[in-house]
């Protein structure tokens, strides 16, 4: 097959906030077309936020994504708080961090176990695993339940959070609840170790393509909330200058906007965070990274999943410390901090499971008059497309089913929502 011609035309590949298609067209060994089409219905959240009272914004915007609901709510609250000059208390900051870890854990566990672990164990999906490797499935369920329960204790439920509000919380966990969480987190360490062990066995393609990685950064912690935007190509930007980094643009084949910074595209997500913020990882997470042979700067996008495993280790350890700090200081019921002003503009930034999320609001007299959200999936689409365009010419000697599988696994590595994108591509050969 010296100069193959074929077309891969995949309808609804992933659940990139819904639905996407892959189109690959190769003519006589030359890649003619390689597009990732996002055909999800337009959501219009920015327009829906306009004209709403500021207090509703976090509740409406959490509905952008059932998987990153806490992340959207947190970014939304930070945007509102910065616009209105609200300074949350230390207790609020700690509770938000702990809550946020719950969401990162929930999402990562779902992704690594439902999408990727079946590959490591040589099966097609997680369902047959329940019979052949019940310990793996039970472990995944146990870990995921803990992550969900963590959010439920702090904000009522993971999808969609209730007790999170501008300036604080409307409900608080008891010491007994925190103690129980802490004990379960300590007990889950063995499951984290087993997860690392499982992923040591996983063979992933050796594809590499140097690209720019962007993540929020703080000098003194592995950053998930606030911080500055930082790039592996150098440079730091306050989140208020996010437009200088994201440079969003539209392409006709996608309802998701795209982004580019210093190069044609950049990547956000667990691997980007790992590359930008390796120094701030918890020592136990660094240990996990060593065991998994993951070192910064890693430019193999397939290893985004491995970076997620490292982050699972980090979030469990940091959650234990946060729970202990909260128990030591004692959680007290406090009314949310009231805004000193009802007009202003603010930008909130968070690292949600799939990468950097920005909410930017203008508020006038308590009403939202302008809103802009930049979601991780939009930022990653250009980079994923560039990866595909770089990968396909190098694997043209493979069979079409192998090419399809490599593209599937690449999509899966980006974790475009929690779709089990395993074997979802239908290759049509012409």
């Amino acid at each position, binding site marked *: 097959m010296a100069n193959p011609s074929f077309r891969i035309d995949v309808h609804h590949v992933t659940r990139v906030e819904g639905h996407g298609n892959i189109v690959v067209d190769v003519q006589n060994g030359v890649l003619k077309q390689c597009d990732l089409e996002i055909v999800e219905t337009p959501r219009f959240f920015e327009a829906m936020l306009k004209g709403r*009272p500021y207090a509703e914004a976090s509740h409406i915007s959490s509905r952008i994504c*059932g998987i990153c609901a806490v992340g959207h709510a947190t970014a939304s609250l930070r945007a509102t708080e910065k616009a209105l000059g609200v300074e949350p208390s230390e207790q609020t900051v700690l509770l938000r961090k702990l809550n946020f870890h719950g969401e990162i854990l929930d999402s990562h566990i779902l992704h690594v176990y439902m999408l990727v672990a079946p590959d490591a164990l040589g099966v097609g999906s997680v369902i047959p695993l329940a019979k052949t490797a019940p310990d793996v499935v039970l472990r995944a369920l146990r870990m995921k339940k803990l992550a969900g329960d963590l959010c439920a204790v702090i904000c009522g439920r993971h999808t*969609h959070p209730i007790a999170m509000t501008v300036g604080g919380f409307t409900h608080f966990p008891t010491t007994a609840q925190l103690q129980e969480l802490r004990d379960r987190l300590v007990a889950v360490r063995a499951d984290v170790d087993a997860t690392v062990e499982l992923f040591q066995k996983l063979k992933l393609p050796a594809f590499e393509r140097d690209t720019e990685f962007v993540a929020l950064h703080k000098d003194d912690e592995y950053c998930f909330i606030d911080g500055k935007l930082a790039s592996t190509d150098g440079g730091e930007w306050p989140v208020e200058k996010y437009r200088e980094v994201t440079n969003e643009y539209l392409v006709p084949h996608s309802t998701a906007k795209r982004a580019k910074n210093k190069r044609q595209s950049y990547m956000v997500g667990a691997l980007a965070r790992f590359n930008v913020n390796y120094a701030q990882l918890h020592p136990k997470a660094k240990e996990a990274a060593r065991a998994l042979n993951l070192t910064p700067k890693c430019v193999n996008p397939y290893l985004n999943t491995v970076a997620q495993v490292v982050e699972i280790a980090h979030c469990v350890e940091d959650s234990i410390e946060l729970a202990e700090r909260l128990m030591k200081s004692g959680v007290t019921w406090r009314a949310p901090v009231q805004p000193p002003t009802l007009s202003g503009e603010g930008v909130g930034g968070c690292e949600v499971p799939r990468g950097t999320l920005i909410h930017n609001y203008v508020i006038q007299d308590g009403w939202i008059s302008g809103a802009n959200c930049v979601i991780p999936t939009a930022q990653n689409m250009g980079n994923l497309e560039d990866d595909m365009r770089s990968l396909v010419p190098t694997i043209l000697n493979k069979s079409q089913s192998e090419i399809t599988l490599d593209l599937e696994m690449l999509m899966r590595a980006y974790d475009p929502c929690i779709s089990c994108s395993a074997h979802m591509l239908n290759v049509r050969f012409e």
Partner: protein
Amino acid sequence: MGARPKVAFFEFTSCEGCQLTVVDSLQTHPELLDAVEIVRFREAMSEKGDDYLVAFVEGSISRQSDEAMLKQIRAQASLLVALGTCAHLGGVNSIRNRQDLQSVRRYVYGDKADWYETYPARPISAVVTVDAVIPGCPIDRNEFISVVTALLQGRKPVLPDSPVCVECKLKENVCVYQRGLTCLGPITRGGCDAICPTFGDGCEGCRGLIPHPNLASMKNVLAEFGMSPDEFDRKTTMYLTYQMMELEAAKNG
């Protein structure tokens, strides 16, 4: 029941949080997996079966081109269940139904607005007949289990007709009105165990109106707590835009 009924999950305009909640329900009720055969559920599996008996549909319909797919699902499924507020009532997607559609498109997509097809968001029942509803944003996982159990036993699932307030009182919550907040609990269908007031927030009406809601009385209560009629109207636009617009249309004949 002989062979396990085949079940499929679909989604239209939504955040997919309800299907995520289904996954979470299965964590605590794995026996359901023995009672049905899931032939399509992209969040959990890769296979795509087309011979399903029961279809769960999440999300509202917000563009013409999605209608054909929904009608196809209806033609195949013996039982079609609306999963969550978006499918049941249009959900937050219908907030924009009271806005000018063209300016909504322009606000998000600028001069490329015409690239993106859309129309006012609607519940799936505006397009096809729906056999059962699991309300909520997101759905309540216990209610999901009880509705599915009823369907498997060949019973029509019964949703509470009582307002959220009933469950809130049973939980002995301090009324959020006493804490200076407002709440749509008096006119909103219960069944959620009053989870929002329990966690300190007023009800936003995600489960839809109870039958024969006394809206006039609700407005009076809100006025007593300093809320203007405009504010009341807006409060009912978060989840209830479609339902309220229908009521207005019926009233105006």
